[in-house]
């Protein structure tokens, strides 16, 4: 099919990061994937993306601040009129460096926190970082940049949504993203420690809705529902290779940051121009449109809304990326999701389980079991 035009480039500048969150979106084998792109490569990638129609760039990782050339990359993005958002843990950052990034053309900052207070946030992050994040949030506001706070939600912090909202207000966030964990990669490896109960989800959702109403016009409150509990798949990436291009630290271009897990051919921006990748890379075309869809997707009246859900989740749980996303209640493989939910039939949920353990980074990929700190 004809390639649509992309809107957003997700630039994963490095997989390195000081934090050790148990739901990290890095590949399981991230330590074997090096930062292979030079400054000039990233500058070319931005230019090629803009020529394709991209207008938004998310500078992410890993921790993008660990690239010394971030200001040079941002300065080029501004010359291209790209809207650039830094997605960061805040570690490491100084006020002077943030001012330099703003002056180079950074438009917005999305700062992660792991929970509403220092002790719990640092425990989840596996690193002392919360106090510094507080300082970073203040600098972002002082320098006149819009601040989004992002919190990945799971069993250990879902009960703290009101405290997280209060913190976001105190820190002056314009936007709060309460994003339930997506169970791919490290989060799938640690799923048994992370999955909340349905009661936790329901309560947090109501609390987030109340905050959204109360703060309307002042702070935007997003609550991203977890597909493990809704019975409906997510419109993953707004459709496969439809609006987003992801480029990883090693130069691999993907339709989604987790797509490297699929047994497809992926091209590298060091060897191919981005427009050729977007249009012709077989991996990008594998699940574009609806031709690939099996039943029940193919005849489903929601297929243009959810695009068949997440291909990476289908592959991770069934071994076949072309299956209907098991998160869908209509999927033949739905039991793979419903049986994993704590407190529901056939689960192995252990009450009083410890908080999610950081993954054993740098080891060979663990199986779908809880990993413990190395």
């Amino acid at each position, binding site marked *: 099919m004809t390639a649509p035009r992309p809107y957003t480039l997700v630039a994963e500048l490095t997989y390195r990061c000081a934090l050790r969150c148990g739901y990290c979106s890095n590949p399981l084998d991230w330590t074997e994937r090096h930062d292979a792109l030079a400054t000039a490569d990233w500058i070319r990638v931005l230019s090629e993306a803009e020529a394709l129609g991209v*207008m938004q760039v998310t500078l992410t990782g890993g921790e993008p601040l660990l690239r010394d050339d971030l200001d040079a990359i941002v300065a080029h993005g501004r010359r291209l009129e790209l809207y650039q958002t830094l997605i960061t843990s805040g570690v490491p950052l100084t006020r002077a460096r943030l001012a330099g990034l703003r002056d180079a053309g950074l438009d917005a900052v999305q700062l992660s926190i792991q929970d509403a207070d220092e002790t719990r946030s640092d425990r989840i992050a596996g690193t002392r970082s919360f106090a510094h994040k507080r300082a970073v949030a203040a600098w972002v506001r002082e320098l*006149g940049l*819009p601040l989004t706070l992002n919190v990945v939600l799971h069993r250990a912090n879902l009960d703290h949504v009101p405290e997280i909202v209060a913190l976001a207000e105190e820190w002056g966030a*314009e936007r709060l993203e309460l994003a339930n964990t997506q169970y791919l990669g490290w989060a799938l490896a640690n799923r048994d420690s992370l999955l909340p109960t349905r009661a936790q989800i329901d309560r947090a959702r109501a609390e987030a809705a109340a905050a959204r109403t109360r703060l309307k016009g002042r702070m935007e409150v997003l609550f991203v529902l977890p597909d493990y509990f809704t019975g409906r798949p997510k419109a993953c990436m707004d459709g496969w290779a439809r609006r987003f291009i992801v480029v990883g630290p090693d130069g691999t271009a993907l339709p989604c940051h987790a797509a490297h897990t699929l047994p497809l051919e992926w091209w590298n921006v060091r060897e191919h121009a981005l427009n050729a990748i977007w249009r012709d890379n077989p991996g990008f075309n594998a699940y574009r449109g609806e031709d690939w869809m099996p039943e029940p997707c193919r005849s489903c009246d929601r297929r243009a809304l959810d695009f068949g859900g997440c291909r990476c989740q289908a592959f991770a749980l069934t071994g076949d990326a072309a299956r209907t996303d098991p998160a869908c209640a209509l999927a033949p493989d739905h039991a793979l999701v419903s049986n994993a939910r704590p407190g529901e039939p056939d689960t192995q949920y252990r009450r009083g389980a410890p908080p999610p353990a950081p993954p054993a980074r740098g080891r060979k990929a663990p199986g779908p079991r809880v990993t413990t700190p190395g």
Partner: protein
Amino acid sequence: MIAPESVVALAPKVRLREDRITGRTVLLAPERGLELNASAVAVLKALDGTRSVREVAAALAATHAAPAERIEAETIALLSALAERALVRIVP
């Protein structure tokens, strides 16, 4: 609440640019891009941080030979929708 007397400006985080594929003006903000129609573009480009909504609407009505009342109502509706998403702000 946007009133005819309000002075409204784009929020500092907002940038307008041309979409090179469609040629249309888009409003860019964190995690958001809105394709604007011609009248929305005219309103947003007329916001100078000093004129009131009524003055901006009157100037647009004169330029486009359109009824001032209708333009003012449409301008308030547009700016109210954008204010709800904190994409414009009322200048104190």
